[in-house]
């Protein structure tokens, strides 16, 4: 976990687009991704790999395109250009969704949102069950797995609570259990602790650390730089829709090469 690996397509210090030695088993492979909203370029030639069992963190200023990048991976957002491969299958190529089975893609890629988005009309355990039942898992089995997952995030005692009866940290842990329910090959996290207080943040990071130790593949947008530094195998700094700098956390966070990365880290540290 601690040894830095050549986790992504880019060598540290390069700006964008250059393809460096490719890891053999990338769960997510993004190449030259471009996306505009209303004529405004939000993602520009982004290339990034998330190898199996690795954790890749995306950091950067607000509005830089981090969320958009993450949402492109499971096609909640439709990119304009470039290609995305997930688990060896091309799901998007140059503005066309080539994924034959969108539902399967989304079962392969779990997602955790900043604002949890639990289903408020269902109890925690039902939140974790729903997707399984819809995917054809027998009800009893889905329930058993939901209980196992709630236990894993330390919330078995809250299984019958509704989201509005739970704290933010509890809700986010249920959301993580829900995202794990279909045994995804990779989890996407979009600022999972940004709307949480420090105590709740600790709870959620504890769960994520456990997942990391179990070898879960993760792509993570975060402002928790110490956490990113601790768990990530690779960090990409995104600004203005481009990957400005990417590499092992010790490099990008410790010895940033790019002026913009340094500026970002400086403002971040002074804000702390």
């Amino acid at each position, binding site marked *: 976990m601690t040894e830095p690996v050549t986790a992504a397509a880019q060598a540290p210090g390069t700006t964008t687009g250059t393809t460096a030695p490719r890891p053999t088993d990338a769960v997510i492979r993004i190449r030259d991704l471009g996306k505009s909203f209303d004529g405004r370029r939000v993602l520009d030639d982004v290339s990034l790999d998330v190898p199996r069992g690795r954790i890749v963190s995306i950091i950067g200023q607000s509005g830089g395109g981090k969320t958009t990048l993450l949402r492109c991976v499971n096609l*909640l957002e439709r990119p304009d250009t470039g290609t995305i491969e997930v688990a060896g299958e091309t799901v998007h190529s140059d503005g066309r969704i080539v994924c034959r089975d969108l539902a399967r893609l989304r079962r392969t890629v779990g997602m955790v*949102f900043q604002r949890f988005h639990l289903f408020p*009309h269902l109890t925690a355990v039902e939140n974790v069950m729903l997707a399984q039942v819809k995917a054809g898992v027998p009800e009893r089995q889905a329930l058993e797995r939901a209980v196992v997952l709630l236990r*894993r995030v330390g919330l078995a005692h809250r299984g019958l609570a509704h989201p509005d009866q739970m704290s933010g940290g*509890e809700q986010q842990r249920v959301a993580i259990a829900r995202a794990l329910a*279909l045994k995804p090959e990779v989890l996407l996290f979009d600022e999972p602790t940004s709307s949480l207080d420090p105590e709740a943040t600790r709870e959620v990071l504890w769960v994520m650390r456990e997942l990391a130790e179990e070898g879960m593949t993760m792509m993570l947008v975060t402002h928790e730089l110490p956490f990113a530094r601790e768990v990530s195998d690779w960090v990409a700094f995104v600004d203005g829709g481009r990957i400005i700098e990417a590499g092992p956390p010790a490099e990008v966070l410790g010895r940033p090469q790019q002026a913009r990365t340094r500026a970002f880290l400086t403002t971040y540290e002074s804000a702390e």
Partner: protein
Amino acid sequence: MTTAAGLFQVPWSDYRSDLLDALLKTVSYTAVSFAGAALLGLVVALLRLSRVWPLRALAAVYTELFKNIPLLAIIFLTYFGLGSVDIRLDVFTAGCLSLIVFYSAYLSEIFRAAISGIHDGQTEAGEALGLGRLSVFGHVIFPQALRLALPGTNTMLVDLLKGTSLLVTISAAELMSEARLITSSTFRALEVYLVISAVYFALCYPLSQLLLAVERAIRAGKPLTPGRRRRLSTARALLAEAPAPAGTPSPKEATA
């Protein structure tokens, strides 16, 4: 006492079976029309939220049109109006159709507001879990929208029940028509309409109280279907079992 005795002189026992028939008629009109109006209202609401603009426009025209015409005019149009161009509907059909058309316009507004009141994140969370469009609607959006729509919908149901009394104008054999018949044979308008009003009250008040209770139960997250009740009690049993040995408790749990 004398005034009360003087007030009640209609031989009500003679009318018991007629009144019962009329009551059943009122209930039938209400049940059929409400089911129809709710279904059509949902369809119109979905059309108004459609991505295809002609569908949206069509639904908007429908809603505005029937929201802004008196129910009585709609009743006359469907029964007498259509009848005059040789589209003769029987009274029950014409009555239900009028109520459906009128109330679906209102219900579609309530449903539309409820559906668009559900945060986009809910749809995205559903989609991100691999649920199809239908599942997202059926399991995520609809149950939540239903909660939001319930108070307004319940008001409309009671309003519809009372609205059936307008069908007296086409002699629909419901409570109000029966009241008019009894009045014309007994000439006791005050007594008859007092009694009929009491019958309406006796129908509407418990109904609205019941609907309020349902609202409260749903808001409290109580399982209303046997299937869900069973699922939750199985869940309770499984959750209560001894926790798995592996894993450290979370910081929260450790202190709790």
